[in-house]
């Protein structure tokens, strides 16, 4: 049987010569993402801003009576609900922000939920309540700050490790790739206004994991080649490293994208946004390893022989050790 080769042997694509263009594109995309985040913001779920969301299924009906619901729930005096479809035509979620005075009475979010459920059940006896999320303002701000803190702590911890294992330029390059990937993913969430909740944070973490994995593989090869080819120009060395690992990059990304695409197409509706985010993040993660993390080393002035220990310095150090000064 002939085996599949996604990337032919001896592929030599000049990736790195496009680095400035790629960097330009990335900067534009990053700025666009930041602009989106600043103007449109994220569609935070109740996890992060508090309030309530119920998921309802109108059994025996073709489509959910969205307009009616809007009026009925609106008449309760908590404000305008946001009603969105999830899954089938007859499934909608009803979302409501925290009512006034909820900062003083934390239980108000839950009381509001109870009233909305009672109203919906009264008007539509056949409705099925599939899910309830009701979060008070205090809890939601805790979830938000804890989530953010965990994310930052994890990113910093990992950067420290890369710094220790490689050189500091690599550590910063990896962090840059990380910021790049997460910002673009956030930009996607802002653009599509998909709901941003705790599950999305898990998706972001997965993206960070993949992105780092990818970066490390390429960095490892770069380090290896730096030992082998001390005289090679940096761009050429990076190209060599990227090309050598290209078949792996393609293979791994494809293999992992396969189940994710399946999840997007057939997976549970509740994790649709989550699956989309991961698929997008993996794509961006592969791109950033090649076009952000690797060229970063050039911009930081890393040369092929940068990390070869200078013999004189090394000798001096050995002498000091022998003399017992260290």
């Amino acid at each position, binding site marked *: 049987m002939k085996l599949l080769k996604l990337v032919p042997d001896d592929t030599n694509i000049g990736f790195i010569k496009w680095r400035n263009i790629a960097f330009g594109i990335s900067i534009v995309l990053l700025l666009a993402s930041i602009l989106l985040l600043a103007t449109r913001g994220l569609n935070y779920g109740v996890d992060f801003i508090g309030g309530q969301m119920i998921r309802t299924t109108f059994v025996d009906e073709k489509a959910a009576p969205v307009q009616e619901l809007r009026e009925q729930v609106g008449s309760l005096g908590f404000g305008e609900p946001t009603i969105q479809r999830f899954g089938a035509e007859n499934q909608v979620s009803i979302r409501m922000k925290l009512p006034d005075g909820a900062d003083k009475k934390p239980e108000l979010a839950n009381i509001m939920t109870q009233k909305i459920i009672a109203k919906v059940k009264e008007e539509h006896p056949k409705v099925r309540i599939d899910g309830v999320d009701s979060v008070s303002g205090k809890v939601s701000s805790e979830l938000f700050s804890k*989530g953010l803190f965990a994310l930052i702590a994890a990113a910093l911890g990992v950067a420290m490790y890369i710094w220790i294992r490689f050189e500091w330029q690599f550590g910063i390059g990896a962090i840059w790739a990380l910021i790049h990937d997460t910002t673009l993913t956030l930009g996607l969430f802002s653009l599509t206004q998909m709901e941003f909740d*705790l599950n999305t944070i898990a998706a972001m973490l997965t993206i960070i994991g993949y992105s780092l994995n990818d970066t490390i593989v390429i960095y490892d090869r770069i380090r290896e080649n730096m030992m082998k080819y001390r005289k090679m120009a940096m761009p050429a060395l990076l190209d060599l490293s990227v090309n050598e690992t290209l078949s792996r990059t393609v293979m791994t990304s494809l293999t*992992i994208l396969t*189940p994710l695409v399946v999840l997007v197409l057939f997976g549970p509706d509740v*994790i649709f946004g989550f699956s989309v985010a991961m698929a997008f993040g993996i794509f961006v993660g592969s791109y950033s390893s090649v076009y952000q993390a690797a060229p970063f080393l050039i911009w930081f002035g890393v040369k092929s022989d940068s990390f070869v220990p200078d013999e004189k310095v090394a000798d001096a150090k050995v002498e000091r050790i022998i003399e017992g000064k260290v």
Partner: protein
Amino acid sequence: MLDFPRWRVWMLNALILASLLLAIPSFLPKATLEAIPSFVPKETINLGLDLAGGSHILLEADKAQLERDRLENLEDNVRNAMRRADRIAIGDATRSGGKLSFTVTDSSKIDAARKALEPVIAGASGGRDWNMEFTDGNRITLAPAGSGQVTALSQAMDSAKDVIDRRINALGTLEPTIIRQGEDRIVVQVPGLQNPEALKELIGKTAKLEFKLVDDEADPDETAKGKARVGSQILPYPDNPTGIPQIAVRRLGGISGDKLTGSQQSFDPKTNEPVVNIQFDTEGGQRFARMTQQYTGKMFAIILDGKVISAPQIKEPILGGSSQISGSFTVESAGQLAIALNSGALPVDLKVVEERSVGPDLGADSIRRGLIAAIVGTAGVLMWMLLTYGRFGVYASFALVINVAMILAVMALANATLTLPGIAGFVLTIGAAVDANVLINERIREERRKGRRVIQAVENGYKEASRAIFDANITNVIAAVLLFIFGSGPIRGFAVVLMIGIVTSVFTAVTLTRMWVVGWLKKNRPQDMHI
């Protein structure tokens, strides 16, 4: 490279077998599991509420109310202590800013007062619950000592947890998890609960029952305005037959509901309305008898959680130690009150600050579609591996399947819970495992292209790829540990799977495949290979 001792092969095979066996129970239906004798390990993975359906309710204590209660209690104790200690008269008692302040009318008795107060302000473990301060010669101020407040809250939360436990158990076959969280919160998780409303109603009810005399000398106009006479207080009374939703009651001389031994929902024999029967303990019964003897003909208010539910007249002394509470009850609400009274009052008001409920249909749909996606997705991954790496792809595929089994086995042993974010963790570890094999196999291909002999190529492949695999996994471990430490619920679910998965995926993707490859090389000594 070929050196792979036989005992290691046996050990690894035993480990594979054990994890496969441990993973199986999680897939068996409950009935089958129960039929298996108990000496067989049959721990299963718990599905999180987001997958299996159920309710998660986070309750927060009303700390301000607890402080108020404590202060009120302190005042009662102080007054009692002063009365008993040679009737030391006190005056101008105020409670404000969390402090109780009062004057001793006869300033020569201040030392006696101090002595009498010592046992009142002493804490449980030798320390002090309250600090005493003397000003202006005869004024005493009691301020809460920091530790006293903390212990009081902690004790209140502990007993609140027990009360909730008793109340939910009274509902029957639910399997709740009730955990204290932080200093002032309690998490209640009930899998498979269809309608959390009744549950919330039940656990949110403080169920503090009091009997107090109605102040029949109060001016009705003043009462309607919410103004109370000295020694009285105005309480809400929504069902007041007079139409005024308020009533004045005497502050002191009542009986509290913690003197109960039991309560049941029942029907009034005359009106056939739902009522709640209550039985006092000996002390409560005596006090109730005394109160009803002393005040026959007067009205007393039955107060639940600060609201008057009814204010019947005492027609005759009640000496038997049992009584009946009527009000505008339904059978359901009377039953709930009976359960709440039986389980004792909550020592502190609890508010629902977070609720997450997933209906069983949505949960089941998530699982079904998640499972389909998992199977199709895994098939896709395996297909890529087989098409690309042939024999090595077969090894990688087996390793992947065993990896999944091992993660499930470890989670089952640890009784861990699988949630939606946990599935993300799964995807990440499976990705890492696939990547490890891709790295190794690509490296072997590269080494072969450079013209290395088969064994040499395989050896270099594993050796050179290991570095990147190691680094990638260590970074994941670091991230997982930090997420576990700093993250909240769902993020932790992700971190747990990630931590387990990293260990198992390195084991299966590197160690196991290497064992199989070595076995094949030893047996066939191939001069060429297909990769």
